[in-house]
């Protein structure tokens, strides 16, 4: 080994791919895991214990909709018992006050509520479901309870103009954090990319407004944001580096270095039912594949930024450059940057695209 093994800090637990929402940018893979293949309560509990032993500090419960698991309270309790900090990333849909209290009683540390917009109509067009009113009810319940709350707004060309209304929702809630996350273009988001990418003008206005909000809310609400990296000069440090900080467990127990890694041809993912988590993290082919720097090509190989962005995103390199070990094509130093610019040049029209042509994510069997 040229480098000492890194320690995983975060375990992303995709507890299920089932979801009452059908968001057109869902980060789940195009091929969804069936309910019958999901890990049992006991299997997850073992994963939590093994993760904690390897050094993981935080478990992010996500999905699909994690609340679709009938054993969600038990899973929170098991993760806490293993010594992990537990975040629930949820649409808030299959929730009532009694269930919320049960989750908090089991030790849930952090409640993250996702929003599809600031109004009913946008949220419904994006998620194919009526959800907004329930989310506002959940915010009310959170106000009278002691738990950290984050609001997560997923942004794209059809709701970027609602930033101020979104901020107003955050400011009147008990949230201490608000995330404005522009859609990432993988999986379902990639399929619907042309309908979701904001224009440069929209993005510029957003950046002005969000920076002002960050200043204004300092000490009250922590404002964090992610720009769509097609517009960036350099790539994002995807997952904080491949196999460096994060391990993702899919509903059936496959261990992945990132949400989208299954799009890369020839990747084989070990399953936590077959192998110890430590062994998968330290030596499985999937986690070794793009770990460190030996896989890098030029310009990454000799670039000073390689220790900051780790060459960017492997899935994006595959999708746009056709080679998973190429420099992320959003990088201005990439020989493939022109392909990203070509995509952008086609979406400079004002955001009047009808939403009817979206491909909605279905539910797994």
């Amino acid at each position, binding site marked *: 080994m040229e480098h000492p093994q890194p320690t995983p800090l975060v375990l992303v637990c995709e507890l299920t791919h089932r979801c009452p929402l059908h968001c057109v940018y869902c980060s789940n893979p195009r091929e969804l895991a069936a309910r019958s293949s999901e890990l049992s309560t006991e299997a997850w509990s073992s994963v939590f214990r093994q993760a904690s032993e390897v050094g993981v*500090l935080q478990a992010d419960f996500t999905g699909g909709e994690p609340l679709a698991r009938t054993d969600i309270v038990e899973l929170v309790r098991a993760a806490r018992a293993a*010594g992990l*900090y537990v975040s629930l990333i949820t649409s808030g849909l299959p929730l009532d006050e009694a269930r919320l209290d049960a989750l908090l009683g089991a030790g849930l540390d952090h409640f993250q509520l996702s929003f599809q917009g600031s109004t009913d109509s946008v949220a419904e067009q994006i998620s194919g479901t009526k959800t907004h009113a329930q989310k506002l009810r959940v915010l009310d319940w959170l106000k009278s309870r002691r738990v950290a709350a984050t609001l997560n707004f997923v942004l794209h060309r059809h709701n970027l103009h609602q930033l101020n209304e979104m901020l107003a929702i955050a400011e009147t809630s008990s949230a201490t954090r608000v995330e404005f996350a522009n859609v990432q273009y993988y999986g379902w988001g990639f399929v619907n990319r042309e309908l979701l990418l904001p224009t440069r003008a929209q993005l510029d206005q957003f950046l002005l407004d969000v920076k002002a909000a960050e200043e204004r809310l*300092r*000490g009250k609400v*922590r404002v964090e944001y992610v720009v769509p990296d097609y517009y960036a000069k350099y790539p994002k440090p995807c997952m904080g580096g491949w196999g460096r900080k994060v391990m993702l467990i899919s509903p059936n127990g496959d261990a992945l270095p990132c949400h989208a890694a299954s799009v890369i041809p020839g990747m084989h993912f070990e399953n936590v039912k077959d192998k110890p988590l430590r062994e998968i993290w330290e030596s499985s082919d999937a986690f070794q594949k793009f770990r460190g720097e030996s896989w890098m090509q030029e310009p990454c190989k000799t670039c000073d930024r390689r220790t900051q962005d780790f060459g960017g995103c492997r899935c994006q390199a595959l999708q746009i450059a056709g080679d998973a070990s190429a420099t992320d094509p959003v990088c201005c130093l990439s020989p493939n940057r022109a392909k990203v610019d070509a995509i952008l040049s086609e979406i400079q029209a004002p955001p009047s695209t009808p939403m009817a042509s979206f491909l909605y994510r279905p539910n797994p069997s």
Partner: protein
Amino acid sequence: MAIDLNSKPHLAPGCRLGENNNQRVLLMPERALRLNGPSLEIVQRCDGKHTVSEIVADLQKLYSKAEPGKVESDILGYLELLHKDRALDFTA
């Protein structure tokens, strides 16, 4: 923000001390801060019972070789940072 020396800092909801591989950490939404030496001494006293002045006095005793004014300004800076990160609240 100016920190009131008589206020009592306490960890915000969803923030707590944790430990892994003998490393103490402050766990909070989406991040964890390693705590060593002075930072651990400070955070351990952010329990809603100690005032900022008391924390300063404690650490000035603990780090008696350091210049007391520097200890105070370092503590205030650190508390401000934790407040900005929404890890800390103050009660009057």
